[in-house]
């Protein structure tokens, strides 16, 4: 049983956010409504009413008429949602004529209107283009146009922005909101991202292990959550506006849907659980403006619900204070990392095209001090992961030097990095499923990074304990662990060589927020205990804000701005940093309406001349088109921007 006894209601013109961690049953709920549950899934019990009509009992053909006509759908990945072999026009027209009595010509006219409405420029030409000719953000717009074809009353949007970059995400959210307002369409917005919900939804349903745990107005859910799970969840989400020393942490992981505990499904992780929670499954009950499925709010047990345990106190930046006088540990100087992605020689000759070089990292310069956490943010494709791989030695830099411990013994550059430093620099990877060899026992995985003369069972056990796992876990295989536990193993492996410097490449982006909090807390803890230095790479500004002492922002292979974390978030200089901070959805932005900045991330194969950001920059001038800005220091912030330099910002 995957989804159990889910009840929710969406009103006309309303955006209902459905949140939950992966595996909570959000998508399945959405699929059930439009009758697209995949075998062996089926609706065993309950009913779905649409405008008072029961639709779950309809035959496939009857339901088909409702799908698209009355209820539209938007899926997560715009890259795979469109048929690659048909033009977008044909796909839209196909859908229109299925539902509306329109001729081909009329349908085409309507398709054009739709494309214009969702903000596709030059729609007249674009209508005859194939999906692969559109960028991700544009494709998602096409998907939205498709969902709107027959002007449905309800749209089920399943993670519509998850696959997109922050700046594009903001555009799509704004578009959805706009459509909702203008057409009076109700939207069921399924997402794991509370920030998106905060900005978009009117009401929110929180799902846990296949059940709705709490449902209510968005402000109440965020600021006055009632369910202990929601409380923990909200506390575990890092924010770009608030500072906390440690994120709230819900220990453990959500049960798999085929192994849910009896009673309240959250009770094994709940600090407030009492006897009844172990036995009886709670139903939704009214509690203020919300409804909560928790025995704590049962009338028979009156009393206070749990309170939000977020410590809103300003954090003393211990680490950063130290960093000021600390010695540099890693110095990156003029780093260039180019990749030759040219087609084969023959094709180049025939097509008379030159070599194609991706300048993944182009002239990068920064220093990481001992004991600090240097955060590197940027949208996908900006080259941040390449920096990590270059530092750790997986790539040989095209130009520039990476010097380790520049102050001591003259240091060692990347090219001459010798075995003694191998152990000092370690890496933690993004995907906990891919970073562990599935055929190896955990103990073997961890032993791999321990220098051969020091490998012992005790050492492995010690490492396991350090990351919060049990000694016995060493005998298991990776697939027996959850994502968070695997990331712990990954960290244990990185610690095997007793490193000084850890490079963390998106270590939490594949994890759910509650698990992310666990890992982030663990990393902070380890840093304190072992005196580690981190290079923390992420696309998530809030996470970087939470963990870093200093932050660098990358755009198309270049560092456009770097500064102390507080300074950068409080007073961003570079227009791109501003754009990012403005775009990022955050808990604090409830109900915020704004016109997001247009434009898209350029093709790294063909970066714009001069300042790479100039096509999207509101402060662009002629100089930006031709001259590449050099980095200057303004109030402790390093920034590479002509506008800032000229004081135009």
């Amino acid at each position, binding site marked *: 049983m995957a989804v159990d006894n889910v009840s929710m209601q969406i009103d006309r013109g309303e955006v209902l956010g459905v949140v939950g961690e992966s595996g909570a049953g959000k998508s399945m709920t959405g699929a059930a409504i439009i009758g697209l549950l995949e075998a062996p899934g089926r609706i065993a019990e309950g009913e779905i009413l649409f405008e008072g009509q029961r639709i779950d009992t309809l035959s496939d053909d009857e339901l088909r008429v409702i799908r698209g006509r009355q209820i539209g759908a938007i899926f997560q990945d715009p890259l795979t949602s469109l048929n690659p072999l048909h033009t977008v026009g044909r796909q839209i027209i196909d859908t229109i004529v299925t539902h509306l009595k329109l001729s081909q010509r009329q349908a085409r006219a309507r398709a054009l209107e739709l494309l214009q409405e969702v903000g596709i420029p030059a729609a007249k030409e674009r209508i005859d283009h194939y999906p692969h000719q559109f960028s991700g953000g544009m494709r998602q717009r096409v998907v939205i146009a498709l969902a709107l074809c027959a002007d449905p009353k309800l749209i089920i949007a399943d993670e519509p922005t998850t696959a997109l970059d922050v700046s594009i995400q903001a555009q799509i959210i704004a578009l959805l909101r706009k459509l909702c307002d203008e057409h009076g369409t109700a939207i069921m917005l399924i997402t794991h991202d509370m920030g998106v919900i905060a900005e978009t939804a009117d009401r929110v349903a929180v799902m846990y292990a296949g059940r709705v745990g709490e449902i209510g107005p968005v402000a109440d859910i965020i600021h006055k959550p009632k369910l202990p799970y929601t409380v923990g969840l909200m506390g575990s989400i890092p924010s770009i506006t608030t500072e906390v020393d440690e994120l709230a942490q819900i220990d453990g992981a959500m049960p798999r849907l085929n192994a849910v505990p009896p009673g309240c499904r959250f009770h094994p992780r709940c600090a407030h659980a009492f006897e009844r929670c172990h036995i009886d499954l709670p139903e939704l009950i009214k509690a203020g403006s919300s409804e909560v499925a928790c025995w704590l709010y049962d009338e028979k047990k009156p009393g206070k619900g749990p309170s939000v345990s977020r410590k809103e106190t300003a954090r003393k930046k211990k680490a950063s204070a130290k960093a000021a006088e600390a010695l540099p540990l890693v110095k990156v100087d003029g780093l260039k990392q180019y990749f030759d992605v040219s087609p084969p020689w023959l094709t180049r000759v025939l097509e008379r095209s030159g070599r194609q070089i991706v300048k993944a990292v182009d002239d990068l310069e920064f220093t990481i001090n001992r004991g600090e956490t240097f955060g590197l943010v940027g949208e996908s494709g900006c080259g941040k992961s390449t920096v990590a791989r270059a530092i750790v030695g997986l790539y040989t830099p095209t130009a520039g030097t990476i010097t380790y411990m520049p102050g001591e013994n003259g240091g060692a550059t990347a090219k001459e990095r010798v075995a003694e430093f191998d152990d000092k620099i370690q890496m933690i990877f993004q995907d906990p499923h891919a970073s562990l060899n*599935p055929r190896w026992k955990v103990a073997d995985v961890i032993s791999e990074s321990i220098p051969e003369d020091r490998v012992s069972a005790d050492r492995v056990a010690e490492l396991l304990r350090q990351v919060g796992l049990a000694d016995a876990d060493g005998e298991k*295989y990776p697939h027996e662990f959850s994502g968070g536990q695997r990331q712990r193993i990954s960290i244990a492996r990185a610690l095997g060589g007793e490193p000084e410097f850890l490079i963390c490449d998106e270590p939490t982006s594949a994890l759910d927020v509650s698990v992310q909090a666990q890992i982030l807390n663990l990393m902070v803890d380890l840093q304190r205990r072992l005196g580690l230095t981190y290079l923390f790479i992420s696309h998530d500004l809030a996470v970087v804000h939470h963990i870093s002492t200093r932050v660098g922002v990358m755009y198309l292979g270049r560092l456009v701005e770097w500064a102390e974390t507080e300074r950068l978030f409080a007073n961003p200089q570079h227009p791109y940093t501003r754009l990012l901070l403005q775009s990022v959805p955050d808990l604090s932005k409830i109900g915020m309406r704004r016109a997001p900045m247009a434009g898209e991330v350029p093709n790294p194969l063909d970066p714009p001349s001069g300042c790479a950001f100039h096509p999207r920059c509101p402060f662009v001038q002629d100089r930006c088109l031709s001259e590449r800005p050099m980095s200057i220091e303004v109030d402790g912030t390093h920034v590479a921007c002509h506008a800032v330099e000229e004081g135009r910002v």
Partner: protein
Amino acid sequence: MSEVQIPDTSPARPGLLRQIWQSDLAHSFRQSKVTVVAGIISFGFVFIALFAPWIAPSNPYDMTGISVLNAFLPPVWMEGGDSRFLLGTDSVGRDILSTIMYGSRISLGVGVAAVFFAATLGISLGLISGYIGGRTDAAIMRVAEIQLSFPDILIALLIDGIIRSILGPGTHGNIAFIVVISAISLAYWVQFARTVRSTTMVEKGKEYVQAARVAGKSPGYIMFKHLLPNVMGPVLVIATINLALAIVTEATLSFLGVGLPPTQPSLGTLIRVGNDFLFSGEWWITIFPGITLAIMGLSVNLLGDWLRDALNPKLR
């Protein structure tokens, strides 16, 4: 669903038969009755292959025990049948049941050996090609591509022909096995190499391999310790399916008269020799080996099919 499926290729804990029995693989095996039957039959063939000298009623290679006067005896249930020869005798007086048992032994043996060599060659080249990449990869893959322009059976025939003409006809009788095995394995390595290569390229990009590189491990170590275990899943599937193909290919070569000689007949040779008597009423000489070959091919194929589905989480 965004949840990542974990392939059920989990290796069983060492030494624990019980765990193997309870593993997902064994579970899906038990789920399919057809597969269970195929498994039992395949096991039966392996048993026969291993123990033919002890369980066969007579030794068809031992010419001293054969009398031409016993030739063309029908199966025991027909008129003129002899109780010593359950399924009758062939044109020189050999017991059909025994020739089938020994023939299965040869067919299966040649098949297993050919697949083993093909797999060894293919895996090595595939790993090198996938991991090293560049010119080495291009060279190996170009050869593979050229070979892929020809169907397996043609390659096998050609290699068979070449080896035979290089060695001269005189020696062929004795080393027919080597000729056939090398012909088949050289015809089938490409599939292994290509699969291993593509799997290697996927696995190579995975972070555990990068972690090993960060830990300063050598390419040989990474290929052998990290990649090899992870490409074995697809290799196992191909090996099983190719075993069926190899058995059929050997039978075809023998049927075409360029495989194993009639003095040491495989099932294909038996069918070829018996084919001359199919219309003259002595159908048992060719039909029984034919049925045996069909059952052997079918059961191995069924196993391969099941294995492919079981190891491919997408198909479930």
